[in-house]
């Protein structure tokens, strides 16, 4: 393993994050606060509790997931797309590195940023509501796995994208709806039976449910299934990335 190369890529990506710290840090804090004001205070006052948890606290796991998934995808896809766009990818392709090292560098950095922002949101939400975390280790495990798998997905999108529009397309048209409809702001049991069944086809439901279980001990689907979903999704992304580098798809002519 060329550890120095991994470290160089990781450091480079993190430097970009720190360069735009205000943007990376302040904007999630503001948007989270807005969600609390709107959903927690204005609407939440009319929905007092969901299965024994105040509505304000109930939406915290979903809010964290929403931001973490979007941030992981955006950071990873931009991280690898930009070198392609400006041409600096020549250096990566001609360096003594293999695909695993490139992926660890880029995906690791994107996941770190997403994790950092996730924790910032968690801290911010503590100002608005009382948060208890019943299974802190499981909470961290779900959070880290989500950061990693969505950063992998972002990496794939970044390699696939042929222009900036396509770069925005998947997060906007696929991920955001899936997260919003994945029980970020409601329990599945609140839906009519038909929609409850439909919702089970949304993979994000399993992630949010597992994450929420780590907080409050309650879940829409069994925790084992959630764990299986997140591990399976990570594995799927890894296979896709491996195939991309093996065939040189959209990278090596």
């Amino acid at each position, binding site marked *: 393993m060329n550890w*120095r*190369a991994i470290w160089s890529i990781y450091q*480079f990506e993190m430097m970009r994050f720190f360069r735009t710290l205000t943007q990376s840090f302040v904007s999630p804090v503001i948007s989270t606060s807005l969600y609390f004001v709107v959903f927690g205070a204005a609407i939440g006052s009319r929905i007092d509790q969901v299965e024994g948890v105040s509505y304000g606290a109930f939406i915290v796991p979903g809010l964290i997931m929403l931001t973490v998934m979007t941030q992981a995808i955006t950071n990873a896809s931009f991280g690898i797309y930009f070198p392609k766009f400006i041409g*600096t990818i*020549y250096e990566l*392709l*001609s360096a003594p*590195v293999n695909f695993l090292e490139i992926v660890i560098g880029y995906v690791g950095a994107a996941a770190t940023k997403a994790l950092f922002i996730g924790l910032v949101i968690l801290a911010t939400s503590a100002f608005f509501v009382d948060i208890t975390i019943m299974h802190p280790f499981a909470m961290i495990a779900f959070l880290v796995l989500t950061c990693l798998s969505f950063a992998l997905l972002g990496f794939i999108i970044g390699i696939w994208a042929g222009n900036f529009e396509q770069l925005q397309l998947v997060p906007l048209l696929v991920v955001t709806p899936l997260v919003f409809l994945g029980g970020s702001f409601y329990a599945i049991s609140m839906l009519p039976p038909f929609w409850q069944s439909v919702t089970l086809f949304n993979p994000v439901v399993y992630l949010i449910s597992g994450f929420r279980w780590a907080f409050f001990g309650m879940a829409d689907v069994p925790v084992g299934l959630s764990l299986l979903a997140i591990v399976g999704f990570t594995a799927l992304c890894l296979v896709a990335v491996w195939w991309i580098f093996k065939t040189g798809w959209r990278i090596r*002519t």
Partner: protein
Amino acid sequence: MAMVQIRNVRKAYEDGFEALKGVNLDIEEGEILALLGPNGAGKTTLISAICGITRITSGTISVGGHDTVRDYRAARKLIGLVPQELTLEPFQTVIDAVRFSRGLFGYPPDDSHVEHVLRTLTLWDKRDSKIVQLSGGMKRRVLIAKALGHEPRVLFLDEPTAGVDVELRRDMWETVARLKADGVTIILTTHYIEEAEAIADRVGVINKGEILLVENKSDLMARMGQKTLSIELTEPIDAVPAGLAGYALEQTRDGRTLRYTYDTRADRTGIARLMADLGSAGLRVRDVATSQNSLEDIFVGMVAEQEDRNGDKEASA
């Protein structure tokens, strides 16, 4: 064994376009090879194939004895590449860019080496500037600094002086000479013949994906040392008089001009004697002119020859 060994390398794209058509080339350690060819000849494709940016369709390439596909790590660690386009991360500082390249190639941080590279390229004062603030010439220097940051044994310079001012070009040539003194093998592509003449040990000519010639520059220069004397006659002649047979004169179709080829570096060019003999043969000279063979002539001649050959092939097919 040659530092870079290229054997039967073909590169065909999916649309059927063949960018390299069975290239064979040996590049010796410590030499400077200039690859000369028009736009689209396959110069950049060849370099990309050696460096791992492009996959080859068939054939093998080794660098320092390491196969560039099977043993890519060892091969690529020896290579520094300076691309043709100014492709740099705009918001990085100069020194970070060089450190990044060094790390990417697996070398431990070495600030004294980085400083040395930046100083030789007169970038030291700009080390903390963001790349976006630099001029085009400075950016080109940064690209070179990045390549030298990881101490390559083989350096590829893809059109290093395209669109570069005179001063930078001179600096670049000096840098190349210094690297050669350190034993670095250098391959540069150019379509400026003067550049090849000025710094290369050997010159390779490539066109339409084929290497047409690889020759020592001195041999090429010898061919270029030849001059042609054109003698215009007052009256056209049917045949060269027997008395002038020793001069290997060529005659133009209209019989008005005779051409005499001679070596400028020979002790006697034979011009005075020829003039005297022309008089004795009864020919009256109206005008004379001399012209020198340049690398350009040789190059243009070769490309035209290749086109003729291909034309014949197509006609017979």
